């Protein structure tokens, strides 16, 4: 079982992966849950890029959205509530060969995971992050999320939640070293795919905020948006996502936007009605922590022993 395989690189060329190769059984989300469409979108991207399943990592926390890795035929890490980022960072720190996805919920990322969110943005490691925002705690059955809109009646705020919802866009864009932020909706596959494709191609922490219908508890909040594309505003212009014109046509609301302008991005981030979709911000020149953490990869054992002996010398008498 151990020992490096000689014909490894050769063999990779000979494999062709279909959607099926990324799929592990029947996803056990509620019928109609937006998570299903996101699953399909991720599988499609991997197929399009022909990423070997064994080279794909999906890391998550805890929540309905965090069950995601279980439905992928790749490597998965379904960890602890709020702690997907540190785990993904640790994996990625010395495994540049792995393609990394993180799936997280609005509670997982913005509530219990908020501290790691701030720092994951700053580390800017090369991973595609999908935050499933159903504006509720799904798995634990309808408690207020920090992204729940004010007044939403939940099991922990039966008289309506009190505070304004966390805005993932302006929050992320305020954080230091942000390099990619996009948002989309689960019910427009074409836009979802194109957005994930852009995120996938960005080297750094690509954060994609997806409005996600929870049929059990909150999808009614999105009914109006789903019915009327005018509730969305498509971000267009140089640097925007690559959307098929036939799909783009349905969006009457458009915002000409320069994703390299952080101030413009923060302005767009503040608008929620119509809800701007597309890339709000992208800067591929931000420092990537991987460049730091990958240092020394592949040092041969003899070199290690030699260096180590030099260190011991410092303490020898």
């Amino acid at each position, binding site marked *: *079982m*151990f*020992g*490096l*395989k000689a014909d*490894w690189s050769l063999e990779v060329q000979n494999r062709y992966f279909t959607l099926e190769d990324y799929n*592990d059984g029947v996803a056990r989300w509620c019928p109609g849950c937006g998570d299903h469409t996101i699953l399909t979108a991720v599988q499609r991207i991997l197929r399009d890029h022909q990423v*070997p399943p*064994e*080279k794909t*990592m*999906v*890391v998550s926390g805890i929540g309905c959205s965090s069950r995601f*890795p*279980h439905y*992928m035929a*790749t*490597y*998965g*890490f*379904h*960890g*602890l509530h709020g*702690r997907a*980022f*540190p*785990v993904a*960072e*640790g*994996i*990625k*720190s*010395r*495994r540049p*060969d*792995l393609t990394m996805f993180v799936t997280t919920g609005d509670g997982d990322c913005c509530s219990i995971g908020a*501290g*790691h969110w*701030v*720092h994951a943005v700053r580390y800017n490691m090369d991973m595609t992050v999908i935050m499933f925002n159903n504006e509720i705690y799904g798995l634990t059955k309808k408690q207020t999320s920090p992204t729940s809109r004010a007044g939403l009646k939940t099991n922990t705020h039966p008289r309506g939640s009190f505070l304004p919802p966390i805005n993932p866009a302006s929050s992320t864009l305020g954080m230091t070293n942000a390099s990619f932020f996009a948002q989309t909706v689960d019910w427009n596959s074409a836009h979802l795919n194109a957005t994930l494709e852009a995120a996938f191609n960005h080297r750094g922490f690509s954060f994609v905020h997806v409005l996600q219908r929870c049929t059990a508890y909150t999808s009614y909040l999105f009914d109006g948006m789903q019915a009327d594309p005018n509730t969305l505003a498509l971000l267009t212009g140089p640097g925007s996502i690559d959307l098929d014109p036939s799909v783009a046509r349905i969006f009457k609301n458009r915002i000409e936007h320069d994703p390299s302008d952080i101030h413009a991005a923060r302005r767009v981030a503040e608008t929620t009605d119509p809800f701007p979709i597309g890339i709000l911000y992208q800067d591929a020149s931000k420092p990537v922590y991987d460049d*730091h*953490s990958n*240092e*020394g*990869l*592949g*040092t041969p*054992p*003899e*070199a*290690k*022993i030699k*260096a*180590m*002996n030099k*260190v*011991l010398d410092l*303490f*020898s*008498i």
Partner: protein
Amino acid sequence: MQDNMETAGQGPKRISEHIIEIVSDSGEGAQKAGQTFGSLSAKMGNGVWTVEIIPAEIKPPARSKAGASGIRIRFGDHQITNMGDEADLVVAFNGQVLYGRFDQHAYKAGTILLIESKWANDPVPEIREQYAAALEMFKEKGLIIHELPFEDACLEITPNPRLGKNMFVLGMLSYIYQRDLQIAKDNIAYIFRKKAQKVVDLNHALLDRGYAFAKQHVPTYCWEVPGRENPGATIVSNGNEAAAMGIMAAGIELVAMYPITPATSVSHFLAEHLYKVGGFMHQAEDESAAAGFAIGASYAGLTAATITSGPGLALKTEMLGLATMAEVPLVVVLVQRGGPSTGLPTKVEQSDLLAVLYGQAGDAPKIAIASSTIEECFHDVILARKLAEEYRTPVYVLSDTNLATGVSQYPRPELKEEWLAAPLDQSDWPEGVRPYEWDPNTGLSPRPVPGQRGGEYTLTGLAHTEESHVAYDPEVNQRSSTMRSLKFATLQRTLTPPEIKGEDQGDLLIVGWGSTRGSIEEAVLRAQKDGYKVSSTHIRIISPMQPGLKEMFKKFKQVITVEINYSDPAPGGNFTEENRRRAQLAQLLREQTLMDIDSWSNVHGQPIRPGLIYNEIVRRLAH
């Protein structure tokens, strides 16, 4: 040690060992002088143990009780394993800094004090009074006091004696203990190698001046502490440095941490050196993230460790439960300090044992190794990595402030390439093998890592089948829980009983763990020499517990543990035989052996000195 001390004579008197302290305001270089004295003595073949005296504040006020900064050096003609009892000789730059040392019982009647005399003539009356009061107090305590004009003597050589008097003191001590001046000079040259030659010359002159000064003022204090034969290549380091070197030698290439006293200096060392062996140290945003980062790296096939102390351990609780449940190898280096809560950040305790073993909700057995010497701090990490991978579980290496900050010598380890072998292998995963294919006889299972074709699975902290599928059925959970526990039973069967020091039967057996070893064995040896039927044993692998204890204990009339953690006093008042809480190892041993094992412990924040253990032995055995 009392029996070695000589107070007069012609020419150097041979003694077996001495304990000296240099105590000053912070920034006066006492530590540098002491370290040089220690290294010099080690080179001359002495056994040495040095430990720094560190003020609680970053820049404490001058001449204050809280400001004591300095060093203790214990050295002798034999191996030295602990900081010892009261000092034989103290050099102090002022009086105030010694007050705190008395709280810690550092001196006794008969301790020689060489103290800077200039305060007696200080222009500020308050300072003169404080000095006089201090001397008065020291006299009452029975110290043998010599007021000496160190600074005046230094002024002959340098206009800035505050920066130079440490080397002067080194010179004094070199006379008193007949050190090889050439080695001292070479050391000084090395220390100042990046400075101009005139700096080296100045310090050499100060050294010589100190030597002559001592010969002139305290000529009768002249001892010889013979060195041993050269024991081969030797390392001198503290326990944290040893642990850091152990991490590097163990081939651990990813260390994630968050700063916390007293574990931080392990990471300072690694920050400086780990990259040289191709490794990476990550400073995370908090301890939970550090544990998560390391667990992620380990899951991905790297060798990973995390380092922390008590409050950090608390924040890693949940992550370590996940690692146990999902069977992710991980080395956890825990440098214990005083608790509970923020407690005593810079002081020693061995009080995290139960938190390590039982901190997690649910059943989360683990491997816990307690290092008992600085040398073990090095080797235990290598053992820990091996066990972590073989048993696919977190392994804790427990050390504490005593080992972390104590400096002593040990044989230079010979590095082995096999220690470095990476577990990461990306060849195909054998078809049909499940990610948790537990061997029903051992509970062990092989582990696929990302990149291995055919091994794809999703790790989860939920109850799961051998396929790593979430499952809540009664049988699945009972079986997987049993398999996770069986691993530890399997390991336990490979362990051997701890060694017994002394007769294997008698009136009293002292059981210890961790950093108290040196003191316990020294005290027991002394008591044995005095005719007491006492032996000691030291447990290195606490979980799963080393075997054979009950058989061993049965042959002694009393068995007690000696630990640095809290236990209730003897029955009295509301403390009764029934409600009395024992020290932590004692609790474990009582549960396991059902024998009435008592404990003798304290939470003084200090290493337990051999003399106190000796007293307890006498108290228990001398009727």
